[in-house]
């Protein structure tokens, strides 16, 4: 239970960090808040010889918009995102960040760390999936952008190459007529890994009634955070409201592939996917209608 020994590096900029990562050739791990990595190291699950601390890199802390896109630095802390980033953060993401851990954990936990750890029910991964986010992955060779459904490969497994740094998360800037919502179910009200979590996003037609497009993302329902194609299909073109949401909830539960474990049964999780889907869609609709 002791932290294994390692050499600590604090690069002055992204380029230096990338060079270091490249130089250590697989011996190094990137360190952000350390709330996953250091815990895993203490438990002996990982023992990197070199740690490269990204926490000081201003390049990873920025957030802002570029055209229709919203860009969030991977180094942003959950606490800042939960605070709304001056109104820029989509509702479901701010809710997810606010539901992560405790105030102490949120002060350390980063957006990038949450995505790269890629837990099936991570509190920021599920909302970002519903929000249709992409990630920017940078290596000495340049940058590539990957949609989240292609980024999550399995529990703790992502499309990130060992030589890459996740620098930014890119999403569409929230527009009027759109809304999102997040729901998390656990035993207690804080410091809780979700038993099930759901995020929903929807965009209304100009009539304010018809759903133009929607996404429902599910956590703890599969080895990775997943989108429910059935829910998206049930919602597209439907009139927003209880009937459509019930159909979407039913479809989401059918898409979910939860397991039985000591935290909960598959049956309960499936039913909760439905219950939370309805609630999240309700929140998303309320936001889309501006109330």
């Amino acid at each position: 239970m002791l932290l294994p020994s390692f050499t600590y590096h604090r690069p002055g900029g992204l380029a230096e960090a990338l060079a270091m990562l490249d130089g250590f050739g697989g011996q190094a791990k990137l360190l952000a808040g350390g709330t996953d990595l250091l815990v895993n190291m203490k438990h002996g699950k990982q023992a990197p010889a070199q740690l490269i601390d990204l926490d000081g890199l201003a390049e990873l802390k920025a957030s802002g918009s570029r055209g229709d896109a919203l860009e969030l630095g991977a180094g942003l802390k959950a606490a800042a995102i939960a605070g709304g980033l001056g109104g820029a953060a989509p509702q479901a993401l701010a809710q997810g960040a606010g539901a992560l851990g405790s105030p102490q954990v949120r002060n350390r936990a980063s957006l990038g760390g949450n995505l790269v750890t890629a837990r099936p029910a991570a509190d920021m991964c599920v909302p970002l999936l519903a929000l249709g986010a992409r990630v920017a992955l940078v290596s000495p060779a340049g940058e590539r952008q990957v949609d989240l459904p292609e980024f999550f490969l399995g529990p703790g497994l992502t499309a990130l190459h060992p030589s890459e740094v996740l620098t930014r998360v890119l999403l569409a800037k929230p527009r009027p007529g759109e809304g999102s919502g997040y729901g998390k179910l656990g035993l207690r009200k804080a410091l809780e890994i979700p038993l099930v979590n759901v995020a929903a996003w929807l965009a209304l037609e100009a009539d304010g009634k018809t759903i133009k497009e929607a996404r429902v993302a599910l956590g703890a329902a599969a080895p990775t955070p997943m989108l429910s194609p059935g829910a998206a299909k049930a919602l597209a073109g439907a009139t927003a409201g209880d009937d459509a949401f019930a159909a979407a909830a039913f479809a989401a539960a059918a898409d979910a592939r939860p397991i039985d474990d000591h935290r909960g049964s598959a049956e309960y999780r499936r039913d909760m996917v439905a219950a939370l889907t309805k609630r999240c869609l309700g929140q998303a609709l309320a936001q889309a209608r501006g109330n």
Partner: protein
Amino acid sequence: MSAAYDVIGSRVPRKDAAPKATGQAVFIEDLRFKGELAGALLQSPHAHALIKSIDVSKAKALPGVVEVITAADVPRVKYGVSPARYDEDLFAVNKVRYVGDEIAAVAAEDLETALKAAALIKVEYEPLPRLLSVEEATAEGAPWIHDEFPNNVCAEVHQEFGDVATAFKECDLIQEGRFVSKRQDAAFIEPNQCVAIYGQDGMLTLHSSTQVPHYVQRTVSMVTGLPMSKVRVVKPYVGGGFGPKAAATPIDLAASFLALRSGRPVRMAYTREQVFSFGRARHGFTHEMKIGVKKDGSLMALEHRATLDGGAYSSFGIATVYYAGSLLGGPYKLPNMKYDGRRIYTNKPACGAQRGHGGVIARALFEQQLDIIAERLGMDPVELRLQNMMETGDVTCNDLAMSSLGMRQCIEAVAQGSGWKQKKGALPKGKGIGIACGFFVSGAGYPIYRSETYHCTVTIKADEDGGGVKVFTAAAEIGQGSDTTMAIIAAEALGIPYDMVRIESGDTDFGIDLGAYSSRTTLMTGHATKEAAENLKEVILGELAGELGIDRRRLDIKRGLVKIAGEAVDIAPLRVRYQKEHRGWLSQPEGGQLTFNEASRLACLRRGTLVATGKYKPPVLGGKFKGAAVGTSPAYGCSAQVAEVSVDMETGQITVERVTDAHDCGQAINLTSVEAQMQGSVAMGLGEALFEEVKFDEAGRVMNPSLGEYHIPTIMDMPAVDCIVVESGEPNGPFGAKEVGEGAIMPTIPAILNAVRDAVGLTIDETPLTPERIYMALKKAK
């Protein structure tokens, strides 16, 4: 504040408030000694296995390793909590009985090396069938975990008071129920840790995070063979105990042996995972009850069976299985009671004592059944309880004497405070209100080992300059506030302000004190402190009377001033003497009355150092039947709570919105501390009711050995708690005080159970009340 007292019943700040708030309080982790070695344990990865061989050669050869010890290196002395069941060896002899059973210990120059060395010890095992449940352990042909205990029965209790069978025949209504609870962890914030030091003078000093320095001293002495006078146990500040720290741990003993052998200080600490795998917290209970009542609601008879999943060793378990029965004797008049309890050995960490020892789940089922009875009789649950409750002077069928019992005040206070009348029966689906009561001992009537010893002794010494006093007690401040309590009692008894009292505690050099368990310290150590303070006052006033040439009975001390009854006495000569000694001091005593400082200084000048002592042990208590000792106490605290909950009918999630809590503590010594115990009890009971369960995999390993996965409530889960302090004035307590430490938890689980039942219309017979359990019950009922 009670008019009669100057300090008692006030809200003076705790003695440890500033050091803890500023981080200056010293815990074991903060103590460092020259030349410390780090110790580590080798623990069994198997739940049940024979040990074929142990090879320590590689561990010994590792550079930096100083000592490696196994069962072969220490005396074969069985120990445990109760002498009737000393069933533990420090290191496994031929056999391991749970995942975590201790096999060897290492001391090395640093912890990394010690851990590495422990991992280098080679043990050959022959696995045995694992018995991970009561069912497996009691199945036909199951192997015996201990050869001495056939069929894995650790302890059995069979008691009958009155005549249950006949009573049932006279009953109009019989209610039967069953309840299952899960093993708990006490989740104290500071994992166990200790440092053992063996001095050239032949003294072994053990600094340990414990609730019971005295019992640790005894056990270390017995197991090492050192005389008790050569073993000193010192407890600095402790980050909580709640029961599991009420006995010597394997690290206390292993560090002692390693220090004895190496001659160097040895530190050993449990990680959080090891805290879980050591266990010793609340058992998993299964209770079955049959309760008979008359049409008018009078309770007539209880037939009760309990099974405790004990784990691999006895720990406190014998007391637990007795308490599980005896604590249903009150707080209701119950003329006939039959109890059959058994505690079964299984291949899991031993269970032991935890806040509300043995009684919590029995109470939960009983109170739940009362609500069902009330419903079946068409009575209000509050009325049913008021009708049956005991009053001061009542004696239970198992001979527990209620020398004070503010049960009625508690019930009426929570009914009124919660708005029971308006709410009960009037809440919408998904909202519920529930009431429950409870009572608990105010200190065990007997020590854990048979002895005529005083349960506590206290010494108070006056400062030579007269400026205050210092209390020395071996009592264990573990966060519950006993230092503050004793300082208040000493101040009140001496008639001086609270801040003139300093206190040193938790050191076996200061006398005997059985420690912080069974909610005993306020009543017992409180008596001893009061007596010591009164004796010191007697000495001081005796000297003063001599000096003034007046009758001692004319003198008293109040609020730091000497009161002289009758005609005026010239105090000027004494004051001048005192002032002469303090030339140059800016502040001098003034006013027409002598101060405590002057009187105490004068007494010191006449007699030298002033020391007085006090002591306490309870009078002979209880009945003559087998097991009568468990449950007897000089006094009983009681309480009632009303819980208000809302249940999310779509997810099964329960929110406890409000708890109205009344507790009869006899007399509050410090009101804030009483309320803190009440709040803490609600938190602990709420966690147990809703979230907490230590889970095991099929190999017998704890699956959730962290505070991330073992869910105690966070502040976000806590309801508003309205604390109502009831003071019935306990004749057997110091200044009328009795317990609040454990009794306060008794009603929490059943109040929540009854509120949930009210909210969803279903009787849930298993804790924790997870969202899934509630949701599935609702789904099934549909």
